[in-house]
């Protein structure tokens, strides 16, 4: 029997029991839709997060923090990743502002600058408003040279030799929802507060500052670089205001962003006599890669769960096929009496499963893609936005564009058909092995 005729026969058998076939197919549809939706969304999420991270990302920088395996020291708790992964450890070791010079001396040929960053949570207020923010103490000139594309004034001017009371503020500090609001402008006099809890009882420290500049919008999570939700004060002022010589991170600018340079300098710092075992060095690109791999892992986990539903669908297919086999025993006997080979009977039953798989996978992919887009729209409206990316997302929802890669498309298609066929193998084999005499006698 020709393949076309086998498929024609299979199709006629499916058409005979439309509701049953429809429900069987529905199992495949749900499984494939879940897989496609999850993969498209997580791929989109990965792209979005990577994109956000890479905004203003300086690939030729390293971030040195205290503690083995620490992740963090990002710019501010409004920036999403800052602070949360400080890792720390039990060591009393601290990074000092003047450790920048020690780091510079470790590999002078590869390091062009090293910059200490002190940061604390605090507030900035004017007579009309009061905003919680992250106060970041940096050397303006050095910071500007490292983040030349993002530490840029939109209004006012970032001073090279700042007065101690100068402050540069991130875009979202003055315009939290990026809708044209201006809470603070260049030239304004503001008060900066922080809660000094190192003394008993804790004291609220404050000083009056002048807004020297408002930064352009950076976007992204501001990892390792300027953030829209932070304010920047000169490092000298930070040392005095926070009464410390300790810094939270040291940003190291390299001569280039080559992997060999990154690895060499990282190792040099981590294994140096001064910092051995006490600091961790992480490159911006490594963070991005790490996050990508975490999302991939989550994606794999979710798809694994979705695949279980497809497995259930497969068992449904097997069940229906066995019922169908019993119902059609006599029909199989007739076909065999007419000269049909066992292999062709096998082909007919497998053909039915292929048809169910193809229809189920096709509808499932379309449905999954639709679901992914609906979820993306809901993310876009901010329904799920609050949890993603902290301060940034609070002001504007995270935009996810679902991605359906050819691999996912073909994989889902193949998986749908594959599961259908695998679970139909046993009933099809049983059908093919029926003895014509016994099958014809079956009532």
């Amino acid at each position, binding site marked *: 029997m020709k393949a076309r005729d086998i498929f024609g026969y299979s199709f006629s058998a499916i058409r005979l029991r439309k509701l049953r076939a429809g429900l069987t197919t529905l199992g495949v549809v749900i499984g494939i839709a879940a897989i496609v939706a999850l993969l498209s969304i997580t791929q989109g999420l990965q792209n979005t997060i990577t994109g956000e991270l890479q905004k203003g990302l300086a690939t030729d920088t390293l971030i040195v923090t205290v503690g083995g395996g620490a992740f963090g020291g990002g710019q501010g708790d409004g920036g999403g990743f800052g602070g949360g992964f400080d890792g720390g450890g039990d060591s009393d070791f601290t990074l000092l502002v003047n450790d920048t010079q020690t780091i510079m001396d470790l590999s002078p040929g590869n390091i062009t600058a090293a910059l200490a960053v002190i940061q604390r949570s605090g507030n900035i207020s004017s007579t009309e408003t009061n905003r919680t923010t992250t106060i970041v103490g940096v050397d303006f000139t050095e910071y500007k040279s490292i983040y030349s594309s993002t530490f840029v004034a939109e209004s006012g001017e970032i001073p090279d030799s700042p007065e101690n009371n100068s402050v540069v503020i991130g875009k979202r500090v003055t315009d939290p929802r990026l809708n044209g609001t201006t809470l603070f402008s260049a030239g304004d006099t503001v008060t900066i507060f922080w809660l000094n809890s190192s003394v008993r009882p804790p004291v609220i420290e404050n000083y009056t500052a002048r807004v020297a500049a408002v930064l352009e919008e950076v976007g992204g999570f501001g990892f390792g670089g300027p953030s829209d939700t932070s304010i920047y004060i000169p490092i000298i002022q930070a040392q005095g205001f926070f009464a410390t010589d300790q810094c939270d991170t040291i940003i190291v600018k390299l001569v280039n962003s080559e992997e060999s340079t990154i690895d060499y300098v990282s190792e040099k710092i981590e294994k140096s006599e001064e910092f051995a075992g006490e600091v961790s060095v992480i490159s911006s690109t490594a963070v991005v890669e790490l996050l990508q791999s975490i999302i991939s892992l989550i994606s794999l986990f979710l798809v694994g769960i979705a695949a279980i539903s497809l497995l259930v669908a497969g068992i449904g297919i097997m069940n229906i096929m066995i019922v169908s086999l019993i119902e059609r025993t006599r029909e199989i006997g007739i076909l065999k009496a007419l*000269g049909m080979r*066992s292999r062709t009977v096998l082909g007919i039953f497998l053909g039915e499963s292929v048809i169910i798989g193809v229809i189920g996978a096709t509808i499932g992919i379309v449905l999954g893609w639709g679901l992914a887009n609906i979820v993306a729209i809901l993310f876009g409206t901010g329904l799920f936005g609050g949890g993603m990316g902290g301060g940034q997302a609070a002001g504007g929802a995270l935009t996810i564009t679902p991605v359906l890669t050819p691999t996912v498309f073909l994989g889902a298609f193949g998986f749908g058909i594959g599961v259908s066929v695998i679970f139909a193998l046993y009933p099809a084999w049983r059908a093919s092995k029926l003895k014509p*005499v016994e099958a014809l006698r079956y009532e």
Partner: protein
Amino acid sequence: MNAIVESVNLQKTYMLGKVPVEALRGVNLKIEKGDFVAILGPSGSGKSTLLNLIGALDKPTSGTLLIDGVDVSKLNDNQLADLRRKVGFVFQFFNLIPRFAAIDNVELSMSIANISRSERKKHAEDMLETVGLKDRMKHKPAELSGGQQQRVAIARALANNPSFLLLDEPTGNIDSKTAHEVMEIIKKLNEKGVTIIMVTHDQHLAREAKRTVQMMDGVITSDEANHL
């Protein structure tokens, strides 16, 4: 004359649970091309078992059975299936595929035999015309009377130009008037040279054949020519 079916000491034993049942106990039979043989016998005489063996639906336990010169006992499953394409089966209960129209049922046996779509459509129409059902060819079995269904079954059996027609109680499930019409078709086919082997327990029907083979308890008790 050429022997289409030839059996020598043909035996078939079934296991009914753990009890062996000898359905055929040494059948010697020779059917020539163009013959019209009625195999007559009561229930349990072994005639259906013989029909299954002649139709290559089953293999003998011992003895020799040659169909079209081929020893059935030496064939594997695929070869048996191929041999069945040379046999035109007509069953008591018609055994048409209910979801297929008459013409599709006839075409089915040809599609199994790998005949091209265009060729089988034309041939199926011719076969249905032969049995007088061309105007009902688009009807499904449920829309046809018992006699018409049996005629579709005959058309289907003829579709692959079989070596012989094998009929199992062909009128057992239809009324006597329709049965007569069906027998007329069968006789006409035989007159045109089609070899007919018919299993029945109806003596009147058996008299329509050229030759009657009487069976009892798994053996042939008589084999006589009918005087038409």
